[in-house]
């Protein structure tokens, strides 16, 4: 249980497998989100550290996706603060959050179905492009250089996720598992500070899940990308993540290393059910 003291450390530490986890990059403070009379998230606080894989788990309807949507700006919480890179974040539109370096994938996959895989990945570069549209129309000088640079990064991501073979294929033709991977590629192409994954392994078979787990670990290892992910599959989560937040009915019932969480009585009750007598 070497990680137990993690929370008390202000700065970086090194994990068992040799990765460096930095200081806090994002902090959620007392977030409450309501839809009409329903409280989807009740007063939840947690932090995400630089370079770690942070999981949010919980049974169906626990508010995990809502939490991710708060981070990515799709929902605006009624109460609480989001702190990002040491500053309080004002209420933002999703596209502004994306421009700040927070990329995400969706539970139900939101890809540009009519475009090729390469074009999809290139849209991930949109936030990084600077040159004006007039220059780009004529494709000269700076614009050309920029296009080539962006293309190189896109190709690197495509290589990394092993989807070279389908680069030119329209996304609509791809099977589900590959679509998930393309969506990850698009998010990764933005070179995000934080990568949010909403159930990256939902609906996959065992082999696909193993592939995806490997990619997530590799991304984190290779690029040092901070990852926050939601997942149902307890086994996968425990293998992947450095720290885990557990939610149930909108409340936070556990937070800590996988081992800590696994042995938390409240978490066990939430997952296995408990006799009320």
């Amino acid at each position: 249980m070497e990680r137990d003291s993690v929370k008390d450390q202000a700065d970086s530490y090194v994990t068992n497998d040799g990765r460096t986890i930095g200081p806090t990059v994002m902090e959620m403070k007392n977030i409450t989100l309501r839809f009409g009379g329903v409280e989807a998230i009740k007063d939840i606080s947690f932090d995400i550290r630089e370079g770690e894989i942070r999981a949010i788990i919980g049974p169906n309807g626990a508010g995990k996706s809502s939490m991710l949507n708060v981070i990515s700006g799709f929902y605006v919480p009624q109460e609480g603060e989001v702190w990002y890179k040491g500053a309080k974040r004002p209420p933002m539109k999703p596209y502004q959050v994306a421009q700040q370096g927070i990329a995400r994938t969706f539970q139900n996959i939101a890809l540009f179905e009519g475009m090729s895989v390469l074009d999809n990945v290139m849209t991930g570069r949109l936030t990084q492009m600077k040159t004006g549209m007039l220059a780009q129309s004529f494709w000269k000088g700076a614009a050309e250089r920029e296009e080539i640079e962006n293309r190189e990064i896109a190709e690197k991501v495509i290589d990394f996720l092993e989807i070279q073979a389908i680069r030119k294929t329209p996304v609509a033709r791809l099977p589900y598992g590959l679509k998930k991977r393309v969506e990850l590629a698009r998010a990764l192409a933005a070179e995000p500070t934080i990568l949010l994954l909403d159930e990256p392994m939902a609906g996959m078979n065992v082999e696909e899940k193993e592939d995806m787990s490997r990619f997530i670990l590799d991304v984190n290892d290779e690029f040092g990308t901070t990852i926050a992910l939601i997942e149902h599959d307890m086994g996968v989560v425990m293998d992947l993540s450095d720290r885990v937040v557990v939610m149930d009915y909108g409340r936070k019932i556990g937070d800590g290393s996988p081992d800590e969480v696994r042995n938390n009585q409240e978490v066990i009750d939430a997952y296995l059910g408990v006799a009320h007598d």
Partner: protein
Amino acid sequence: MPEQLAFTIEVFLNGLMAGVLYALVALGFVLIYKASGIFNYAQGVMALFAALTLVGIMEGQVPFGHLINAILGTEVHHFGWHIPAFLAIVLTMVVMIVLAYCVQRFVFRYLVGQEPIILFMATIGLAYFLEGVGDLMWGSEIKTLDVGLPQGINVWIDEFTYNATGYGFFIDNLDIVASIVAAVLVIGLVMFAQYTKQGRAMRAVADDHQAALSVGVSLNFIWILVWSLAGFVALVAGIMWGAKSGVQFSLSLIALKALPVLMLGGFTSIPGAIVGGLIIGVGEKLFEFAVGPMVGGATENWFAYVLALIFLVFRPQGLFGEKIIERV
């Protein structure tokens, strides 16, 4: 060259030229449809409005003159200046951009995520609103639009073909200009959509709103951009049609001819709008020439629509439309 053949070729060429003008209107439809899924019924009226505004600005007409006079009892009609065509076109473009902003800000911002039929209804409302505002602003009399484009028979082509074949082809200079402008416009728009950041963002928005947001694209900005582009295309179409047949309210009816063009070319394809326009233009001229006399003429009124119907039955996505991929 036999007279009959030469005449057929001339009809063919004139059909091409007419088709270019249809294509110009159809282009505006395609732009908005591609980026927002809205079928913009107001595109024809936008062309009319742009042409009216252009004439009004060039001639220094006081906007809302009749209204002002009726309310204040004054007698103002003209500022008394004439603005050169180039400057007037720039000013009209500014007006079209303001219009694009207003359309997005006051209408479509509140309709995000609604059914296509509701968005379509909104554009019908917009069409009548714009027509009314155009009338109120600039008056309803027919105006001539002269931005200095060459008009009349192209003497060079006439002489050249006469010397070469013994038959002088009649091609209008204005039609030639319109073709060149349309070609430049299409190349520009395709390059914009394919190679620029904003173009890529535009295609992204057209495909999936949520995904576009997640890669950092502002929907609002893209929609204003797209309506501005459509306004620009409307302005070009308005100038060409206005120069050809005068600026009058029947101009908004050309929009209806753009419908069969779109069904042929596909609602989502910029080159499709051009090819569709050309096919309709040539088709209806040749059909009128060959079959017209046998059925009492006036086939131009219905030929395009019948052709569109046939296409709807056999190839609903049009010649260039995105293929409908279905996974079962």
